[in-house]
């Protein structure tokens, strides 16, 4: 049965490639018929290597960059040729035939991480399932809460994976599980500009139950279940957008926290203390003044952006800003926790123990989890009450945290080694995890790539330099 399915899948891929090739060939003929294109000199012909042949048969697009329209046509293989031609003409970017067209087999090597890179974690306490958000392979992976990868095992397979073009999961950083119905919320940070919501048992290349078109550079999210309000941090221009919990499509926020008095400075993590009606936000400290006097079209979804005022930017130290839960507009924080004693270094996602009010912070570059107590009154340069840090902890660029009050456990997702680690909730110091879910071999260190849109080369050291 499986073999039959696989054969039919292969057949459909081959058919897809054939249709694409036919479209490309026809367009190619039309393009080369143009008087300005001229003819090419064929430089060489060789058999494609296996890797390239596999790639051609891949259901993924060959590349999303525009290449005389051929790629776009590949994505339109089920539509008619006329539509494809119209698209080409509209783009007006046909590349004339090159003087020299090389057709030899390309020789190349690939630098990539083949394992998931986990940015955030959440637990469904009803189904005992852990959800890990993956930034590298663009997936949400679901494991049993009690899964534990022994050192002898290469990795633990997830019980379900949500991934594929229909899911619209891309560089997602924030994840939230609805405590009542188990819906999975996940917000995207870069190329997708969406928050997607899936049913709790969703798997595969599934269409989300609903989507909310979010602001470019959204990072994390949380929900006030009492008021049914959804909070999303936006790194830049810095703000907190508050939506109806069920908001979808192009629905706008019901209120926005933004402005110079808010002291939002590249906000990342967000958490709600329900008991004390407080909102906590972690900030990286890149600050700029926005008086709202200038706006311009943004890069994505034609959103309008406020322009930062010229010459007002500063590098401040990272902070946690605290607001009343119903804050709106240019509201100053009630309190700010900031300074060298806090140990914050690119503070990422936050989670609160609703029983104690303790605030847990994934402290990415400091390779630690910080726990702040007394969060109803703390302010200034206060040290964390507890710090989970050290070689025994297994922490590697932790960016996600989740407090499981029911089982008195703390979950951490590690960007740096494709794992999630679990600790007793009151853990402190250099403590080993009580369990670990690894999605890569024990020795694997993630490349932590996140949209490699640029590259340079250092010939002095023979090194490739890759920014995120």
């Amino acid at each position, binding site marked *: 049965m499986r073999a039959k399915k696989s054969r039919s899948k292969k057949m459909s891929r081959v058919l897809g490639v054939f249709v694409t090739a036919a479209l490309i060939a026809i367009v190619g003929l039309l393009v080369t018929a143009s008087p300005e294109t001229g003819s090419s000199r064929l430089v060489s012909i060789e058999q494609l290597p296996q890797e390239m042949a596999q790639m051609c048969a891949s259901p993924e697009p060959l590349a999303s960059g525009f*290449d005389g329209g051929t790629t776009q046509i590949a994505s339109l293989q089920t539509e008619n040729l006329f539509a494809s031609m119209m698209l080409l003409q509209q783009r007006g970017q046909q590349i004339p035939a090159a003087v020299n067209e090389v057709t030899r087999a390309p020789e190349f090597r690939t630098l990539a991480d083949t394992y998931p890179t986990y940015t955030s974690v959440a637990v469904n306490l009803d189904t005992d399932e852990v959800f890990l958000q993956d930034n590298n392979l663009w997936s949400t992976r679901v494991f049993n809460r009690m899964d534990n990868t022994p050192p002898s095992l290469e990795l633990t397979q997830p019980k379900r994976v949500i991934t594929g073009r229909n899911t619209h999961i891309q560089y997602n950083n924030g994840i939230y599980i609805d405590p009542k119905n188990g819906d999975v919320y996940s917000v995207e940070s870069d190329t997708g500009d969406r928050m997607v919501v899936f049913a709790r048992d969703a798997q595969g290349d599934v269409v989300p139950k609903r989507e909310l078109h979010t602001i470019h550079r959204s990072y994390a999210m949380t929900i006030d279940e009492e008021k049914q309000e959804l909070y999303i941090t936006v790194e830049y221009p810095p703000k907190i957008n508050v939506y109806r919990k069920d908001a979808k499509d192009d629905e706008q926020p019901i209120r926005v926290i933004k402005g110079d008095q808010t002291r939002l400075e590249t906000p990342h993590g967000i958490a709600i203390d329900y008991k004390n009606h407080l909102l906590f936000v972690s900030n990286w400290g890149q600050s700029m003044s926005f008086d709202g006097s200038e706006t311009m079209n943004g890069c994505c979804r034609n959103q309008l952006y406020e322009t930062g005022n010229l010459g007002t930017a500063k590098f401040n130290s990272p902070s946690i800003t605290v607001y009343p839960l119903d804050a709106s507009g240019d509201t100053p924080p009630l309190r700010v926790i900031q300074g060298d004693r806090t140990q914050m270094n690119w503070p990422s996602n936050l989670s609160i123990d609703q029983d104690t009010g303790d605030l847990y912070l994934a402290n990415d570059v400091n390779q630690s989890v910080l726990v702040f107590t007394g969060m109803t009154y703390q302010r200034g340069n206060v040290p964390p009450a507890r710090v989970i840090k050290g070689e025994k902890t297994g922490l590697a660029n932790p960016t996600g945290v989740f407090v499981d009050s029911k089982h008195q456990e703390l979950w951490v997702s590690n960007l740096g080694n494709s794992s999630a680690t679990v600790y007793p909730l009151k853990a402190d110091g250099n403590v080993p995890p009580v369990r670990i879910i690894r999605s890569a071999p024990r020795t694997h260190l993630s490349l932590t790539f996140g949209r490699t849109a640029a590259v340079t*080369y250092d010939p002095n050291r023979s090194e490739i330099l890759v920014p995120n």
Partner: protein
Amino acid sequence: MHPQIAAFARLAKENAVATRKLAGQLTRLGRTMHDIAYDPIHDEIVVGSPFAQAVLVFRGGAVGEEPPIRIIQGPRTQIVSATNGVDRIAIDPVNNEILVTSRLHKILVFDREADGDVAPIRVLGGPDSQIGTNPPVRVDTVNNLLLISGNGGMLVFDRTASGNTKPKYVIGGAGPTGGSAQFEVYNGLVIAPRGDNLYAWNLRDSGPNVRPVWKIPAPLGPRANQLGIVLDPAHKEVLVATGEGNQIRTFSVPEFFTGRSTNN
């Protein structure tokens, strides 16, 4: 998102361990580094910090949470942030200049050793220049030219052009997809990836839709979009950053490095 500059050995492949990573609060790095430049003469790395209206210059061998050795930032710099801020950047190590493109359709040129709140030494921009928003820019020190990518192709200026100057000529259709990604100038060629091919145009050609002189297959794998490129002439290789593909692919392309660049 986790901004970083990761370094890998030239021959690194899948799941290679980075030889070093630059990341953390003290580095001043921010996300959205759509361009990066290495200065091999002075051994420095230059990137933008877009959420802080800043240009950061690091030691070439910077590692860990090492701070930049120089920061260009402040009202005199004319660096605005807007949405993408300091998006595109270039280094001219021969003439000791750092070039920064602006969302306001300008190229800001700074002394390479500029530090702090310093004014640019030249500004190129204005309606006659045809410069778009945050365009990629490169300097051809051999031919003393400044190349600025745009939606319609490659704008070519004298290297020291300033003010509201018209381009010397336009290589129509040349350059990266949509004009908005890294490209390279080498050996009389303008080189950029498009789709699953590497293209090269003759630097001396001009016109509305110029024929490339080379088209070389370069399969980029799944999700490739928003591409970057750099050349390694010593090994006759072209490195392509696949953007959303989260990969770097290195292609052997001797054709670009043979010295033959004209139509023949």
